[in-house]
């Protein structure tokens, strides 16, 4: 996977959380996700197709998801509700859609987002392609944006 694929997702995430939501957020250097299934309890997934195929996963602890969506929607949630799940899905949609701005050499279609909650689940990452994890630290807790993309351009 090309390193140039990562910065658009990092920038889109910072724009959403720091600039738009005004949440105090810092980012650490991206790392290889050693166990691609080792994600947090609330994960929003979006598929990529076209000149690249892959997936983007935004993953939060339950507490961080609740606080982040409360900030996003302007409502105060106390638990994982349908509204929180909807909000997390919309966040990954924004990150993936905004990242396309910096990937204009590629024609990419994004899927509708899906959200998984729980302690044990598998993500169908593209086979044979590493998953790069971008770790964020925020006032609402740590979270990460995970990207795996395979270049389909000949």
């Amino acid at each position: 996977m090309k390193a140039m694929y990562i910065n658009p997702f990092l920038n889109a995430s910072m724009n959403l959380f720091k600039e738009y939501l005004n949440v105090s957020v810092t980012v650490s250097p991206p790392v290889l996700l050693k166990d691609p299934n080792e994600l947090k309890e609330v994960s929003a997934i979006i598929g990529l197709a076209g000149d690249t195929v892959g997936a983007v996963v935004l993953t939060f602890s339950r507490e961080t998801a609740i606080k982040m969506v409360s900030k996003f929607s302007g409502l105060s949630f106390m638990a994982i509700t349908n509204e929180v799940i909807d909000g997390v899905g919309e966040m990954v949609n924004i990150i993936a859609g905004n990242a396309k701005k910096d990937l204009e050499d590629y024609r990419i279609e994004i899927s509708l987002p899906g959200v998984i909650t729980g302690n044990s689940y598998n993500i169908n990452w593209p086979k044979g392609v590493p998953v790069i994890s971008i770790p964020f630290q925020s006032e609402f807790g740590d979270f990460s944006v995970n990207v795996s993309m395979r270049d389909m351009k000949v």
Partner: protein
Amino acid sequence: MKVLIIDDSSTMRRIHRNILLEAGCKDEDIIDAEDGEKALQLANSNNIGLFIVDWNMPHLNGLQFVKIIRSMEKYSLTPVVMITSEAAKYNVMEAITSGVTNYIVKPVKAEIFLEKISKYLT
């Protein structure tokens, strides 16, 4: 004037509705739909003065919806504001050539959204 908000995210529908209320729209004049199919039913049974439409939605997406309403005489000139996360230039061009009046990339601050749509609310 009736405004139709079309977005599969309930969070976004609520955010847009609150901004329209802040702009002075009456609650009963704001209707919404979670996909293009349901929006078409509402467009047929109402006289909509402004469409605020997302792109990526199930069943009938925002672009397909816009193409259909543009072929309808009563909505051939009605303002359509697309608000979507799709930020690539080719997406913007495709939307505009399909009949979208104004294109806004999410996330957008309420004041900027309002500034862009206020001219259609008069």
